[in-house]
C-alpha cells in the first residue's frame, strides 16, 4: 500500500501560517462594493492559487473569470473541483499568445463539460504537458477546503484508496489510533483567492445562496481573499431580517461586485437556466484554432466588460428566455 501519493503539493498545509494571515485580514464591516475590474486588479495577483465557486457551469462567477483572463494574470494555480465552463474560460489564457495564465492544476474534473462533451482547447492545453497536474476527487477537494476552513492541516476520508488517482495525488495514509484501520487523509488547501457568484449580498459582503451550495460554504471560509459577485445588492437590514439565510459572513469577503446574470452562460438557480446554445458554440468553435482565437478576441478581450459580453450573446431578450426556462422548466 502506497503511504503517500506522488503528486505535487501546491499549497503547504501550514495552519499556523494561515492563522497569521487570517489574523491580519481586515475585519471591519466596511463598504466593499467595487467594479469587477477593480476587484480583480486589487485581489487577484500573478502566481496566486485560485478557486472558483459553484459547479462548473452552475452558479459560476463568469464575469470575474472573464476579467481574470482579460487582465492576463500569469502563472495561476487552480482548483479544478468539477471545473467545466470555468476551466474552459481560464484556458483562454493559455496558448493564445498572451503568456500562460494556468500553470498548476489540482484536478478533480477538468476538460469536460459533463454530458456536453470535452473542450478541444482545454484538451490542447492540458495534453501539451505545460500544466503541472495533481489528481484528486470532488470530495477530496471539498475536504481540502473544509480542512482549511476548519484550520486543521488534514482531514480523513475512506475513498479513492488503492487507485492511480491516489498515486497521482498528494494524499497520504494514516492509521486510526482507535480502530487501527488505514485511512486516507487529504491536506488542507487555502486558496490565495476565490471567486464565487451568489444570489444576494449586502455592501459589506454578507451573502445568501439559494439552492445547492456545492462546496462554497467551505471555499469561502478557506480562501485568503474572496471576491463575490451577486445578482442583487440588498440592504444590511434585509440581511439582519433573516440571519439564518446568511451563508457567507462579511468577514470572509474582500470585494462585492454587483453583476446581474453574472453566472451566464451557466445556470443560476431560481434566476436563469444555462445557455446551452452558447455553450455548444464554445465547444464547436474550439475545434478550429483560428476561429477560436477570433471568438475569444471578440467575446472576451475586445469586450470592455461583462455587459458587452452579455450584449453580444443576445442581451436582454436572451436573458429573458433563459429566465423563462429556469422558472418554468
Amino acid at each position, binding site marked *: *500500500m502506497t503511504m503517500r501519493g506522488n503528486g505535487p503539493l501546491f499549497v503547504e498545509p501550514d495552519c499556523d501560517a494561515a492563522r497569521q494571515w487570517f489574523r491580519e485580514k481586515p475585519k471591519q464591516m466596511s463598504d466593499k462594493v467595487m467594479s469587477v475590474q477593480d476587484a480583480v486588479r486589487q485581489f487577484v495577483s500573478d502566481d496566486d492559487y485560485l478557486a472558483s465557486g*459553484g*459547479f*462548473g*457551469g*452552475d*452558479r459560476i462567477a463568469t464575469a470575474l473569470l472573464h476579467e481574470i483572463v482579460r487582465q492576463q494574470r500569469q502563472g495561476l494555480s487552480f482548483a*479544478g473541483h*468539477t471545473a*467545466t465552463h470555468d476551466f474552459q474560460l481560464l484556458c483562454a489564457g493559455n496558448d493564445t499568445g498572451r503568456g500562460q495564465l494556468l500553470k498548476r492544476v489540482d*484536478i*478533480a*474534473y*477538468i*476538460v*469536460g463539460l*459533463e*454530458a456536453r462533451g*470535452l473542450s478541444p482547447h482545454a*484538451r490542447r492545453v492540458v*495534453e*501539451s*504537458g505545460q500544466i503541472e497536474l495533481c*489528481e*484528486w*476527487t*470532488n*470530495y*477530496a477537494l*471539498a*475536504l481540502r477546503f473544509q480542512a482549511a476552513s476548519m484550520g486543521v492541516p488534514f482531514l480523513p476520508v*475512506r*475513498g*479513492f*484508496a*488503492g*487507485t*492511480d*488517482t491516489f498515486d*497521482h495525488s498528494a494524499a497520504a*495514509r494514516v492509521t486510526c489510533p482507535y480502530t487501527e*484501520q*488505514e485511512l*486516507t487523509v487529504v491536506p488542507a488547501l487555502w486558496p490565495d483567492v476565490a471567486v464565487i457568484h451568489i444570489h444576494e449580498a449586502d455592501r459589506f459582503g454578507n451573502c445568501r445562496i*439559494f*439552492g*445547492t*451550495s*456545492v*462546496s462554497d*460554504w*467551505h471555499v469561502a471560509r478557506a480562501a485568503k481573499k474572496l471576491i463575490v459577485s451577486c445578482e442583487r445588492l440588498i440592504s444590511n437590514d434585509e440581511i439582519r431580517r433573516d440571519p439564518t439565510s446568511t451563508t457567507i459572513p462579511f468577514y470572509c469577503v474582500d470585494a462585492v461586485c454587483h453583476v446581474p446574470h453574472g453566472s451566464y452562460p451557466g*445556470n*443560476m*438557480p*431560481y434566476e436563469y*437556466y*444555462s445557455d446551452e446554445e452558447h455553450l455548444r458554440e464554445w465547444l464547436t468553435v474550439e475545434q478550429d484554432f483560428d476561429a477560436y482565437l477570433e471568438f475569444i478576441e471578440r467575446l472576451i478581450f475586445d469586450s470592455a466588460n461583462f455587459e458587452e459580453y452579455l450584449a453580444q450573446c443576445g442581451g436582454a431578450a436572451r436573458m429573458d428566455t433563459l429566465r423563462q426556462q*429556469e422558472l418554468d*422548466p
Partner: protein
Amino acid sequence: MELMICAAARTLEDGAMVVVGTGAPCAAAMLAQKTTAPNLTLMFEAGGVGPRLPRMPISVGDSRTFYEGLMATSMSDIMETCQRGMVDYTFLGGAQIDACGNLNSTMIGDDYQRPRVRLPGSGGASDLGSLCWRVLVITPHDRRRFVKKLDFVTTPGYLDGPGAREAAGLPPGSGPYKVITSLAVLGFHEETKRMQIESLHPGITVEQVQAETEFELECCSPLEVTSEPTAEQLDILRREVDPHRYIIGR
C-alpha cells in the same frame, strides 16, 4: 438503449437511495420511480435531493436536480451520506472498465504527463464508487472499453481481486454490482470478484460478448436472457421520462 435503461430500472428496489448522474442513469432512476420503486430517493452529487424532476438535468449540479426537491444541500453532505453508509446505489461510467470493475475516466495513453486523450478525471466518481454500497454501470460494450488493463485506475472496483478493497481501507461489503451493456447484463463472481455474464440481451450470444471483451468472461449458470422492457416501462419511458428522446434516441 431502452433495454439497458429498463434493465437498470429493475435493479433499483423501492425505498433505496441512489446517487445518479445525467443521461441514462437518471432516466433509469426516473423510470424506476414511476414503476416499481415510487419511494426511490434520487440524490445528485452537487447537493440536490429528491427533486420532482421536470426534465432531465443537463448538469448534475443544475437547478433541476433540486426542482421542488426535498433538500438543496452541499456536495459534502451527499458524499458524507454515502460514506456514512446510507446510500445503496450509484451509477458510474468510464472510458475503460476491467474484469474487476475498476474504471478509468482520467486519460487514454501510457504517459500520464502526455496523455493521448485527457479525460475529465474522477469528479465524484472515485468517491461514489468507494463509498456507496453498490455501483451500477451502463455502457456500450466494445473491446476498447472492456480492457485487460486500464490506462489509469480512476475509480476502485474490486481493484486486483478478493480482499483488495478492504486492504485499501475501502468500506467492506461495497463494490461494483452490475454492468449493464449494449449486449448483456454482467455481475461479479462472489469469490473471484471478476466480471461474469448474468444475462444476454435477446439475440446476443456469449461469443459475441466475449469478442467485444478483452478479458476472459465467465458465465453464470443458468445464463438468463435479459427481460425485454414491458409495454408499461416503454410507454412511461417514451412518454414521461424522455419524451424528447434525448437519451433513448442515442
